[in-house]
C-alpha cells in the first residue's frame, strides 16, 4: 500500500519537475527584466519564438545545442525589440509586450507553414536534435533502496540537461542579484533609476543588459518545450505558459527562491490536473479540469488582493526613464 502510494507520488512529482522547468526559466527571465524596471508581458511570445527557432534549427541541423542557440537567438532578438521600444523610445511597455506576443504567434505559424508545410509545425526531430534524459551516477544501483532509492533514481535522475540548468539558475540568479555589483545596480535601477543615473551609471545600458538576460532565459525556456520536452515545434505550443510564469513571478514577489517554489506549485497543479483527468477525488467528487487550469491565476489574484501577504512590484517598473535635460 505504502509502496504504490509512494510510487504514485513520485510519478506526480516527476512530472511536476518536467512541467515546472519552462515556467521556472521564463519566471527567472521575467525577474531580471522586471527587477530592472521593465515590465514584460511578452514572455509568452519570446518563449514561442524560441521554441520555433530551436525546433526549426534542431530539425535542420540535427544538433540540439545548435537548436538551443537558435532559440536563444530568436528570444534575444525579441527582447531587444522590447528594449528598443521601452528603453530607447520610452514607449508603453505593456503595448510592446502585446505586440511581441502577436508577432511571435503570427510569424512562427506563418514561417513554419512556409518552410515545412505541415500546418505550422516542424517535422519530428531526429534523436540528436533533442536533449536526451541524463542518468545520474549510481541511479541504477540505488534503485532498490527503500524510499530514497526511487526518489533518487526516478525523481532526481533521468531528466534532460535543461531541467538541471533551470534549477541551477535559481541560486545563480540569487547570487547575481544579491551578491554582485551588477545585481545591486540592477535592483537599484528598478527602484530608483534617477539615483543610479546620478551615481554615474548608465540606466539605459543596465536595462538593456537586463532584457538580454531575460531573452537568454526565455530562449532556454522555449527551446525546452520544442527540443527537450517534445520532439518538434507545434503551433502555439506555449499555450499561456508565459503568462503563468508571469503570475508565478508576482506570486513569488520578485524573489528567485520564491520563484522556484511558485513554479513548482503551479507545475504540481498542472501535473495533478493531468493525473486526475476524468477521475473522481475521494470525498470531493469530480473536479473539472478547468478548475486546475484556472487555479494558478486565481491564487495570484488572491495574492494580489493582499490576502496572502502583499506583492509589491519594483517601484519604477513600467515607468520609462527620461534623463532630465539641463
Amino acid at each position, binding site marked *: 500500500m505504502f509502496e504504490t502510494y509512494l510510487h504514485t507520488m513520485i510519478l506526480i512529482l516527476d512530472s511536476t519537475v518536467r512541467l515546472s522547468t519552462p515556467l521556472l526559466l521564463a519566471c527567472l527571465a521575467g525577474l531580471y527584466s522586471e527587477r530592472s524596471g521593465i*515590465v514584460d*508581458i511578452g514572455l509568452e511570445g519570446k518563449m514561442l519564438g524560441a521554441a520555433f527557432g530551436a525546433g526549426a534549427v534542431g530539425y535542420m541541423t540535427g544538433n540540439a545545442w545548435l537548436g538551443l542557440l537558435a532559440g536563444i537567438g530568436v528570444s534575444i532578438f525579441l527582447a531587444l*525589440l522590447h528594449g*528598443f*521600444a*521601452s528603453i530607447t*523610445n*520610452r*514607449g*508603453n*511597455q*505593456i*503595448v*510592446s509586450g*502585446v*505586440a*511581441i*506576443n*502577436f*508577432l*511571435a*504567434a*503570427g*510569424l512562427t*505559424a*506563418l*514561417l513554419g*507553414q*512556409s518552410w515545412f508545410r505541415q500546418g*505550422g509545425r516542424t517535422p519530428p526531430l531526429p534523436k540528436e536534435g533533442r536533449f536526451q534524459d541524463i542518468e545520474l551516477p549510481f541511479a541504477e544501483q540505488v534503485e532498490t533502496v527503500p524510499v530514497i532509492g526511487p526518489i533518487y533514481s526516478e525523481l532526481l535522475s533521468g531528466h534532460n540537461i535543461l531541467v538541471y540548468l533551470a534549477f541551477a539558475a535559481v541560486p545563480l540568479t540569487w547570487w547575481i542579484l544579491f551578491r554582485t555589483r551588477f545585481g545591486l545596480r540592477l535592483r537599484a535601477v528598478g527602484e530608483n533609476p534617477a539615483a543610479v543615473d546620478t551615481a554615474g551609471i548608465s540606466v539605459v545600458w543596465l536595462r538593456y543588459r537586463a532584457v538580454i538576460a531575460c531573452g537568454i532565459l526565455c530562449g532556454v525556456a522555449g527551446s525546452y518545450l520544442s527540443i527537450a520536452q517534445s520532439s518538434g515545434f507545434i503551433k502555439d505550443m506555449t499555450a*499561456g505558459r508565459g*503568462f503563468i510564469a*508571469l*503570475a508565478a513571478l*508576482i506570486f513569488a514577489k520578485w524573489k528567485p527562491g520564491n520563484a522556484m517554489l511558485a513554479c513548482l506549485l503551479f507545475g504540481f497543479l498542472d501535473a495533478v490536473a493531468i493525473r486526475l483527468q476524468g477521475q473522481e477525488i475521494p470525498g470531493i467528487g469530480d473536479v*473539472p479540469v*478547468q*478548475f486546475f*487550469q*484556472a487555479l494558478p*491565476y*486565481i491564487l*495570484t*489574484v488572491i495574492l*494580489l*488582493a*493582499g490576502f496572502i501577504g502583499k*506583492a509589491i*512590484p519594483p517601484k519604477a517598473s513600467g515607468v520609462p526613464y527620461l534623463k532630465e535635460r539641463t
Partner: protein
Amino acid sequence: MSAGQLPRWVDFGLIPALNLIAAFFVSGLVVLLIGENPLEAVEILLWGSLGYGEGIGFTLFNATSFIFTGLAVAVAFHAGLFNIGGEGQAYVGGLGVAFACLALDRYVPWWVTLPFAVAGGALFGAAWALIPAWLQATRGSHIVITTIMFNFIGAALMGYLLVDVIAKPGSMQPETRTFEDGGRLPLLDNLIPGDFFGTSQVNLSLVIALICCFLVWALIWRTRLGYEIRTFGANPTAAVYAGISPVRITIVTMLISGAMAGLMAINEIMGAQHRLLIEFVAGYGFVGIAVALMGRAHPVGIVLAAILFGMLYQGGAELSFEKPAITRDMIIVIQGLVILFAGALEYMFRPALVQLFSFAGAPAGQAD
C-alpha cells in the same frame, strides 16, 4: 516653437500615418521572405476587403466587433487605466447575450430579445471587469496583471460551462443550441433593398456600435462623469484634491469598459453565429488595444481604425484563399507590427519630425 512641440495635424495625422506605413513596409518584407509578391498581396487584400459588396459586408462585420473592443480599451485609457482584459470580458459577455437569446428566442421576435441581450452582454462583461477594478481601486493591485489573470480565469470558466453545463444535450460540440429567429439580429442585407452585402454577416450590431461610439463621445466630453474620468486620467493626485473619488472613478470606468467589451458578443453571437461557442472572441479583445491606440482613444478614430482592422481580417482571409503560402497568420503578424509601430514605437519618428519642423520654423521664429 519650443522643443517637442508639433502642429496638431502632425501629431494626429502625420505620425500615425508614418507609423502605419512603417508597419506595412515591414509586413511587405515578411511577404517577400516567404517568397510572394507584396504588391500583389496588397492588391488582393484591398480588392478582397473593399472591391465588392460582400467583401465590404465582411469588412464591416469585423469592424463592428473591433469598434466595441476598441471603445472598451479607449474608455479605460481616459481614466489612465489599461484594460487588457477585453478578451475575457467579451467572452463572458457572450454568456449574458446567450442567456437572453436562449430564454426568449422561441417566444418573442428579435426586437424584444435585443434589449435583454444588450443588457445581458453589458452586464456580464461589466461583471468580469468588476473584480479587477475593485482590486485596483481599493487594494492597489495592478489592473494590467489582474485583467490578464481574469482573461485566463474567464477562458477556463467558459470552457467548463460550455463543455459540461450548457452544451446542447447529446452533442459533443462545446456550444449551445442554435437560436431560433427570436434570437437572431437581422442582417443589413435584409434591411436594405437589393443584394449588396451578399452572404456577409454584417448586421444591425453595426448600428448599435455606432450608437455606442456616440454615447462614449458624449460621456467622455460632454458629461460631468466624463470630465471626472479625464481629470483622473490626466492627474490622479489633482483629481483627489478636486473632490473626485478614485475608487468610484476606477470602478465606474472599468464597468463601462467591460460593458463595451461584452457588447462585442451581440455582433458575434446574436448577429452571426446564433449560438454560444467556445473561444468565439478569437483575439478581438486584444486587437481592441491596437484599435484604441491607433484611434487615439477617440470614437471617430476608433471607427476608422476598426474599419482598417476589419479590412485586414477580411482581405487577409481572401489573401490566404488566393495565395495559400500566405496563411491567415499573416493577419496576426500585421496586427503585431501595427501594435508595435503605432503603439510601442509611437514616438520613434517624433524627434526627427521635431527637428525638421523647428528647422523649417526657425526663420519665422527669428523674425521676432
